[in-house]
Structures are given as C-alpha cells and as structure tokens.
C-alpha cells in the first residue's frame, strides 16, 4: 500500500509522491520495479491509470497481470507482440482440427465396416470428410451406429463442438500478417 514513506514502484519511477490511495500501489510493489517499467514503456503510466480507474477494484489485479504479459510480449517482439503468439496458436488449432477430422473420418469408416448392411458401399475417409463438410454435422452419422454407441457418440459430438466453435469463432486476420 502506498504511504509517504515507501513509494510504490510506479511513483518511484515517475518521481512523485505516492499517495495513500495511489491507484498503482496495490499492483506495483516497490520490490519489483521492472514490472511497472515495462508497462509504462508500452502503454504509458497515464493510460494504465485510466484503464485501471475504469475497472472495478476486484478486476484490477488481473488487468495488471494481462497488461504486464502484453507489454512483455511487445518488448520481446516489437512488431507483432501478442498477435504473433495468437497467430501461432491459431495455426496449431487448425492443424489439430484437421487431424481430428481425419481421425473422425477414419473411425466412421471403421464403424461402417462393422455394419454388414453397408459393407458393400464402404466410403473412403476422404468421402466421409466431404460428406461431413457438406452436412456440417457428423452427429447424425454416429447415431446410426450402435456399436460402442455411448462412448463414441460422446467423443464424436464433443470433437465436432471443438471444430464448430472454432469455425464460427471470429477470424482475427483480414490479411496475411507476414508480407
């Protein structure tokens, strides 16, 4: 807490008196000067102060943590900052979604092979994936197969949720980030 005797890291850096109700004091203790320094460098003290003032007190600690994280990311990567990490993670998500789709198609194929009535017309995984994309919902297919019904339907349904949530999620990049 700020007091006349021990200024918080922010007031030390800004060379001003640390008031009792200093907005920075709870989150920028004097023993970690680097924390405020980096946030000040990227966002500026007055912007941080404004942002904190607009938040209820119980959310300020989290806000400070995320600002520190973003500031660190921006210092590490002055061009892309956090956006670089997000881009990388989105690629990982896409990659995993593809692998999931392939695995789902494979298991549907295997399930179909166990059904004697459709054994004559077993689609290959590629056909199944195309079918899935057309219908945008593979739950109907899984419900037709009663072998290991409960467990597989849960797995298929929840994995399709992962894909559908991601597909409907806003894409952040209107253009290629790397030119």
């Amino acid at each position: 807490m700020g007091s006349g005797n021990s200024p918080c890291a922010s007031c030390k850096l800004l060379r001003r008196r640390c008031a009792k109700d200093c907005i920075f004091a709870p989150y920028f203790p004097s023993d970690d000067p680097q924390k405020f320094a980096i946030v000040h460098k990227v966002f500026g003290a007055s912007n941080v102060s404004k942002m904190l003032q607009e938040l209820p007190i119980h959310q300020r600690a989290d806000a400070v943590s995320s600002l520190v994280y973003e500031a660190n990311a921006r210092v590490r990567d002055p061009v892309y900052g956090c956006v670089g990490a997000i881009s990388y993670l989105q690629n990982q998500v896409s990659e995993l979604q593809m692998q999931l789709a392939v695995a789902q198609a494979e298991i549907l194929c295997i399930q179909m092979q166990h059904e004697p009535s459709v054994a004559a017309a077993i689609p290959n995984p590629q056909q199944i994936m195309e079918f899935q994309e057309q219908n945008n919902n593979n739950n109907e297919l899984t419900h037709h197969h009663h072998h290991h019904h409960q467990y597989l339907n849960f797995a298929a349904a929840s994995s399709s949720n992962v894909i559908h949530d991601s597909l409907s999620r806003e894409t952040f990049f209107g253009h290629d980030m790397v030119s």
Partner: protein
Amino acid sequence: MISGRCAACKNQRRKCPSDCIFSPYFPANDPQKFACVHKIYGGSNVGKMLQGIPTYLREQTANALYLEAKWRIHDPVYGSVGIISSLYEQIKNAEIELAKIQTQITFYKLQTQHVEAEPNSEVLQSQSSNMEQFEWDNPTIASWFN
C-alpha cells in the same frame, strides 16, 4: 494541407507534415484505427514505437497494435491474453479428443486383427502336429492309416 491530414493528425488536431510517421498506416478514411491505438497506447507512444521499427515492418506493427488495442477495448480486463488463454484451452481439448479417437481406432484395429487371426486353424495346426507326434510314437496305429 489541412485537407490531406492523416487520421492521427486529425485526431490530435494538428498539421500533418509530409514526413508524418502515422500517415502511411493511419489513413484519414479509417479514424477508428488511430482512435483505438490512441486510447490504449497513447498517440506519442505509438509514434515512439513506430520510430524504433524499420520502415518495411511498420505497417505490420501498426496493424498488430490496432488488433491488440481493439481486443483490449473489447475485454478491458484480459485483452489479447484472454484470446491466448482461450486458444490454449481449445488446443488442450482438441488434443484430448484426438487422443480418445486414436485410442478407439487402435482398439478397433486390434479387435479386427484378433478376429482375422483365425484361432481355429491355429488350433487345428497344433492338433495335427500332436497327431504326427502320436503316430511316430505308435507305429502300429500309423500303419493303419497308410
């Protein structure tokens, strides 16, 4: 030229010099872009940051700052960090699902292999070799079959 001001200089109500650092990346027809970065980073901070970047990377920098500012305005507590957490969560869930399905595939494949192994023929095989053994041991019986 007052009419040719970029969004930054319009926002700051100043003249827009010919070498204005903002004007290539904050055109007048997109006032929102500068407004966002100004709100989160402050105009002079953005200028400072851009100055520290080589010219050919400034457009990406301005765009990345714009995105982060937008996310921070949308989520004042977590900003882009909220998106990062959510992506980690998605990755974790997808990996779990993938592992489940791959286990099921392996299970099915093992089942199929077991069924195709034709245990009857194996048993017959071992039985006939036992028979041969028996015949050798008992030549009298063997002669009945020859």
